[in-house]
């Protein structure tokens, strides 16, 4: 045994040494919590736009969903007898995304029930963070969409009795589906339209989404896949309708497409692992959105497209096992 002479001379205690397997370094600047905080920061432009467009209706949806999501997570996690994991901020992210995907006019209990289902059936029942197959926010939304069809369907978005301008109009996707009326690209881009409170502004989604991709929190492959699929398919639709580019932009900027592409489809838990898999996943979402918009009775299909692709994710993972370096 060597004497640690200098240390002893200094009169200090002997340092406590411990052993562990390598590697001995860790990137402590990047944690799951920081990923979730990044998403919260990226959501700021969308929240700001929803507050600007829908005023206290937006506040109501956000508060109801966040509180309900946090409470449901705490409830279900404690029912499982596990330590409460609110500190990772993932429940808050689910709450905000869920709120932003609801119409302004939906009553408070719609948001609350959606949150309850999102956390309980969407997430904790599978084993909590990282284990769920479907995006929790979309599970919650799908539930209320079926349970409260009248309060959630396209008609619920417009209500002339409300005092806000936006809510008295039809949503762009519904106006297009119902009567073939397109909204001005300017309004779609900046978000001066009706719709789910967080989806109206394409610009806000692009700003927040770009931030997420630059930070590396969201993988750019997913939005790239969604957007390329939509460009191809909406481009074909546009071409058959006279090829002036208007329809293409309408599909791209309208509805929840960009919001979904940047914020919902990029949920790492429910999307594939490899870059190739992520692109396939994104392209699948984009194609299903176009399929639903063009051929189904629904004006919009982002939620269903993402849920369907979530179900395909394990399969995509199996298809895209990467070849290790040197594997012929």
């Amino acid at each position, binding site marked *: 045994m060597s004497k640690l002479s200098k240390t002893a001379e200094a009169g200090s205690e002997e340092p406590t040494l411990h*052993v562990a397997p390598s590697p001995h370094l*860790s990137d402590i600047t990047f944690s799951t919590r920081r990923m979730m905080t990044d998403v919260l920061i990226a959501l700021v432009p969308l929240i700001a736009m929803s507050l600007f467009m829908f005023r206290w209706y937006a506040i109501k949806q956000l508060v109801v969903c966040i509180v309900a999501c946090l409470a449901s997570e705490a409830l279900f996690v404690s029912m499982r007898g596990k330590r409460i*994991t609110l500190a990772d901020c993932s429940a808050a992210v689910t709450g905000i995304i869920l709120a932003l995907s609801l119409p302004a006019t939906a009553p408070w209990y719609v948001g609350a029930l959606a949150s309850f289902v999102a956390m309980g059936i969407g997430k904790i029942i599978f084993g909590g963070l990282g284990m769920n197959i479907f995006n929790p926010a979309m599970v919650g939304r799908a539930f209320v969409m079926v349970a409260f069809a009248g309060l959630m369907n396209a008609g619920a978005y417009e209500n002339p009795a409300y005092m806000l301008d936006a809510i008295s109009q039809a949503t762009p996707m519904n106006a297009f589906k119902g009567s073939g009326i397109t909204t001005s690209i300017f309004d779609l881009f900046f978000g001066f339209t009706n719709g789910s409170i967080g989806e109206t502004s394409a610009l806000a989604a692009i700003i927040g989404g770009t931030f997420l991709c630059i930070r590396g929190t969201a993988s750019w492959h997913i939005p790239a896949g969604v957007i390329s699929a939509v460009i191809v398919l909406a481009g074909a639709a546009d071409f058959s309708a006279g090829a002036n580019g208007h329809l293409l932009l309408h599909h791209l900027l309208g509805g929840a497409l960009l919001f979904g592409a940047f914020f919902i489809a990029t949920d790492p838990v429910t999307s594939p692992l490899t870059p190739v898999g992520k692109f396939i996943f994104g392209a699948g979402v984009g194609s299903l959105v176009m399929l639903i918009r063009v051929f189904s009775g629904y004006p919009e299909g982002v939620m269903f497209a993402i849920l369907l692709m979530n179900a395909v994710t394990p399969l995509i993972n199996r298809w895209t*096992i*990467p070849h290790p370096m040197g594997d012929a």
Partner: protein
Amino acid sequence: MKVMGFFRSREFPGKGSFPHGIHPPGNKFYSAGAEVEVIATPDKVVLPLLQHIGAPCEPLVKPKQVVACGEMIGEGQAFISASLHSPVAGKVKKITVVTLANGRHLPAIEIQTDGEQQNPMDLWKKMADTDWLSATISDYDPETIAKMIHAAGIVGLGGAAFPTHVKVMPNDKRIIKTLLVNGCECEPYLTCDYRLMKEAPGAIVTGALLAGRAVSAKEIFICIEDNKPEAIDALKIATKNTAIRVAVVKTKYPQGSEKQLVKAVVNLEVPLGGLPSDVGVAMSNVGTMAAVAMGVIQKIPLTHRIVSVTGGGITNPKNLFVPIGISIGELIDYCGGLTRDAARIIAGGPMMGFAFSDLATPVTKGTSGVTILTHAETARGEETSCVRCGRCVDACPMNLVPTRLAMAARYNNPALARQYNINACFECGSCTYVCPANIKLVQLIRTGKVQVAATMKK
């Protein structure tokens, strides 16, 4: 500068980099500026009989036998083995058992220093100050070089310690086209190769020429990461009138790993489970090349090496020229002892080195450094659930899916582990470094490899 680098025409076919990898803080500053210091001959040395990959060497000495400095005390008789020489003059005390930093218990020869010693400073001066360029490489034919390397007990000094004579042995089945001399030193903290390249470039160049001649290489590259401009300059000057070229590669971990460096410099992929020789490449560390020059030209066996003693947990970080077999505790004492917040002593670098607690552990041929980290440097967040973000996939230099491999290990599913090519993992630790959920991926993968090996035996 970086942008210009993009347009730079390279003298080698590779891109100077490999896909994926990580950028941990280099922290070379602790010891990069410290010139190599020669440590005085210790009172005793403990020399394990297996310091390399392969079969242990057979002891040639008995207790109480007097040995001279540089005398062969263990003979590597198997094909893949290496001989052992005494770094000191003295008397064999006993054949004992030591535990190395990697956890292996091995028989070792303990020698009590006695009598007149050779001054280790002379040895270092020979390596650093010899006029190496006057040596005539063509005097040595390939067979002789390989034999002399074998006689000098030289093994890879980069860490893996593979016997060098096996690599340079002329082999008709495996034609070597390129010799890569590895001076990347991609492990954070370590600076022993850097100091050697700066202070003894002539020995490296001469050794590379000898090894290149032994394997009949058509081209020789000395590969250095671009964060070591002074080493690059020193070697560019030293290689001026030779056929050797300096390949500047990107600073990225694990650039110095065998397969990654082959990809970066010669743009070939070493087949899974294969060796660089499968694609006509031989690779050796810069320290090994200097040892080859010493062994062949000066006929001095490998008894000393440079060890970096570095990190936030050591009072005075240094690069030391030490006899193999000296205890690591003596090196720590020489460097002023541990600081109060020292937390972990590692043989090697912080990414792939082994943590140990017994300061009597001897320096072996493969010990490139002793990294002493503080509590702050080893800080790691609490483990949370995998969110399948895929950052480990983006980090893995072998293009694997570490989270899947770790999951397979956790649920003891060797079939899944093999489907995801678990054995291609060389445990560089990049996945564990980046994981935002702080999952100990590579540690789990090691467990998985054992599970896979167990099913293969059945």
